[in-house]
């Protein structure tokens, strides 16, 4: 597989480590009244779609960027690659 790094261009997937679903960015609020249940769901419940999937990859053998890769899990087609930091900000982290 080839991942088109937003800063570095096309890189071989062997340079990356995989983490999982992009929802891992949505870490719950620790003060939430239902924090324990929400952290449980955050940590253990994830979708496993056949088709488009947004997922986290880490360019460990490169610039150490975390990336959000939109990949079709059936064809492995990579449709979009974003810097995870920017994606996280866009998802409302850091407010």
């Amino acid at each position, binding site marked *: 597989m080839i991942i088109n790094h937003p800063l570095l261009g096309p890189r071989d997937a062997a340079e990356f480590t995989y983490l999982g679903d992009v929802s891992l960015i949505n870490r719950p609020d620790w003060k939430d009244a239902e924090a324990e249940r929400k952290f449980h769901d955050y940590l253990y419940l994830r979708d496993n779609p056949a088709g488009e999937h947004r997922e986290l990859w880490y360019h460990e053998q490169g610039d150490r960027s*975390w990336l959000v890769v939109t990949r079709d899990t059936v064809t492995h087609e990579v449709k979009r690659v974003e810097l995870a930091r920017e994606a996280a900000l866009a998802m409302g982290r850091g407010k």
Partner: protein
Amino acid sequence: MTQPNRVTGGLINRDAALGFSFNGKSMTGHPGDTLASALLANGQKLVGRSFKYHRPRGIFTAGSEEPNALVQLRRGGHCEPNSRATVVELFEGLAAESQNHRPSLEFDLMAVNDLLSPFLSAGFYYKTFMWPKRFWERVYEPVIRASAGLGKLSMLADPDQYDKGFLHCDLLVIGAGPAGLSAALAAGRAGVRVIIADEDFLPGGRLNLESQSIDGVAGSEWAAACAAELDSLDNVRCMRRMTVFGAYDHGIFGAVERKTDHLAESAGKPRQILWRIYAQRSLVCTGATERAIAFGGNDRPNVMLAGAARGFLNRFGVAAGRRIAVFTNNDSGWRTAADFAKAGLDVAAIIDTRETPRVSGPGDVTNLLGRRVVATSGRKSIRSITLSDGLRLSVDCLAVSGGWSPNLQLTCHKRNRPRWEERVAAFVPGSDPDRGMRVAGAVDGQFTLAGCLRAGQEAGIGAAVEFGRAAPALELPRVEAEGCGITPFWHVAESRGRCWLDLQNDVTVKDVELSHREGFKSVEHLKRYTTLGMATDQGKTANVPALAIMASLTGTSIEKTGTTIYRPPYTPVSIGTLAGRSRGREFRPTRLTPSHEWAHARGAVFVEAGNWLRAQWFPIEGETHWRQSVDREVIATRRSVGICDVTTLGKIDIQGRDANLFLNRVYANGFATLAVGRVRYGLMLREDGIAYDDGTTARLGDNHYVMTTTTANAVLVFRQLEFARQCLWPELDVHLISVTDGWAQFAVAGPNSRALLSKLVTEDISNHAFPFMACGDVTLCGKVPGRLFRISFSGELAYEVAVPSRYGNSMMATLMQAGEEFDAVPYGTEALGVMRIEKGHAAGNELNGHTTALNLGLGRMVSQKKDCIGNVLSRREEMNSPDALRLMGFRPVDRGEELSAGAHFFAKGEARNMQNDQGWLSSAAWSPILGHSIGLGFIRDGANRIGGEVIAADPLRGREVTAEIVSPHFLDPEGERLRG
């Protein structure tokens, strides 16, 4: 020795002779021969014994699809089993041995299996050898392993070298037959960056095996001219002896190039290269493989595929037989008769299953239409055939053609399914095999030469246009018209003998019928139940006939029956090639500590810790047992001073305005109040509340920290911190960099550590100026910038001193020199371990991914007053039960006994089973200070059981010790020494 079956013609160099041996028998061949063609030339028809029944077998094909002719090549560590004789290039001195027989190929005792064949049908090992159960491992399995099988490994290390490489191109053309050459030429002339790869050493594909001409010259000549032009183009790389074995995502292909397999010696060159090819576009021109027809006794030596028989004749000048018959269901078989007749060889008959084929053979050859071969005779070679009308013909070779199956494997590696094409009675690639992949030629069901040349040229021009090049003006080469008619015919039903489908795995039509009767009807089940299509040839000549028979049994179409899923590799790839240079010591990098040279010169014994080599202990003269060295190092350190290289701990430099906030969130304990110039122990949890890692973090400045991690987790913690920084809290101003390799760090421990360091450090490090848990920049030896941390893993008054790595080796020597007056010792990881167990510090054995802060006795460190990773889920009920495991100390009640790590705890008198298990001993050591064995371990409700006794049972070592539960802090529980 003469070559009785060598006739005229062929693409071999008759001016040179190559001597080789088969089963010790000397033979000769010529450059340009394969081992198979040379064996046939020498009259060697029997070349191997079959896998299961030890049936005598001969050469069946002329290519990489060969099921029978598997031989053992070379000697000693170079020995390579299961080499297909049909693709082995002959070289001077080649030594080949046949496989799977005892004692010899000619007389194989194991052929008794053949008589037992009624008991060895499909799935026999699932049925016959089930009882009694314990017999499977002890009796049945070893016997089956010994009697069934292919080649034998030498059990020696492979002395050859293998390499890996990367290639990039616009267009990858796979296969250099008529379609591939045409395509590469068209695209290459237009300036496209082309790689064309072919498994053969001679480009041309079937052109070299057929007698057809192109533009008035022999097909092989045309191919040679094409290859020469491709070689001359700078933008084209024509790679011979290269098998593209797999198609992967995003236009990546795996290929093996055999660099020196065709030479007697590798002479220091890599034997094979594993290429990873990145191609914008790919064109699969892999041709087609001929398949057999199932009839009684169709496995006898010298029953071979019709295309192979004429291939040996046309390419190698070898007559597989002097009196040949052809059995076919399609037009291509007739060409074998024509080529043999033209060479002046005797063609007994053409037997065509079709009543009215629209093809004509050589005038004087008997055509027997609408007839079938029902039986054969002959043991070590075929002697006669019997036809459906009872006619018996004596022949010494039978050429069979059941039609052709496109080599569409590469188009299916990404799970595209093939489509059945009735016109050619074959599976062809499904539409749009993959983005950027096209097919052309026989692989696409184009079974005429004219069709292949046209399709290849069009595809090449198409690629040129796609890459924005001007389409080259090309004329289509002229070739003779030919037919490719076929009427599917799979199995001669009236045969009474066994009708073989898969020669390599000894699968017959009867096995398929049995599989069907027993409910294994899907092709995937059929494959697993009968072993059809397994092993080195993956059933290239057998699969389609077998699934056609399954289709007729189930009453469904062949298309619906489908094929098994094709997976890489297309042909076998040796493990050595996949490993490349990553073997032995080079399997992974070895990291050396900065003081490695010093330690090595000192005679240290090293241990691997992750990728690191660390000094384990430093023996001195007179010490004969490791414990003597370790005890001495511990005692010397606790009495005076010891020095240990601790560089391997992960070091992460953390800077930024929000660094403090960041640390407070990644550590479970509070970091908000850590002052500049101070160090704090930190415990990290995983988000699920399990303890993850620990270490110390020093605050060097307002916005500057340096964190240490355990050696084992250095990479993982760094990854996790980057995740937290970029994904969880992107708003924080914090930056990380790993400085593990940047700083050499040494623990200086013991009551005289301050005195020793005071000799080297410019700054005041008195207890008042530099108290326990202080840190700061220092100057060493008057000029070297360093960092000093007053932290202690040993429990002694101790420091860790860090200097830039380049000073590491001399720093060690300098510390030792300064320590001479204190009898300073270097100590290794064993003494380090003993001292931390004496002190009750958790390490990797305790932070094992199952234990919580509570288990470790650090429960109160987990702050619930702040947001930090893991604190919410650490509150889970199950993880906070009152009788949770607690880390405790253990000592044998009989002080003379020894505890062993891994022992499990049981109450006295209770059965040693899972229900009664109370915990386990995670670390154990001999304490030279206390003079007895000590241990750390987890035990239920341990904190309330001090003074209690348990059995530490270690059934693996056959040992049971009665142990007393004590505080994990065996030494100086108040910590007076380290504050002193």
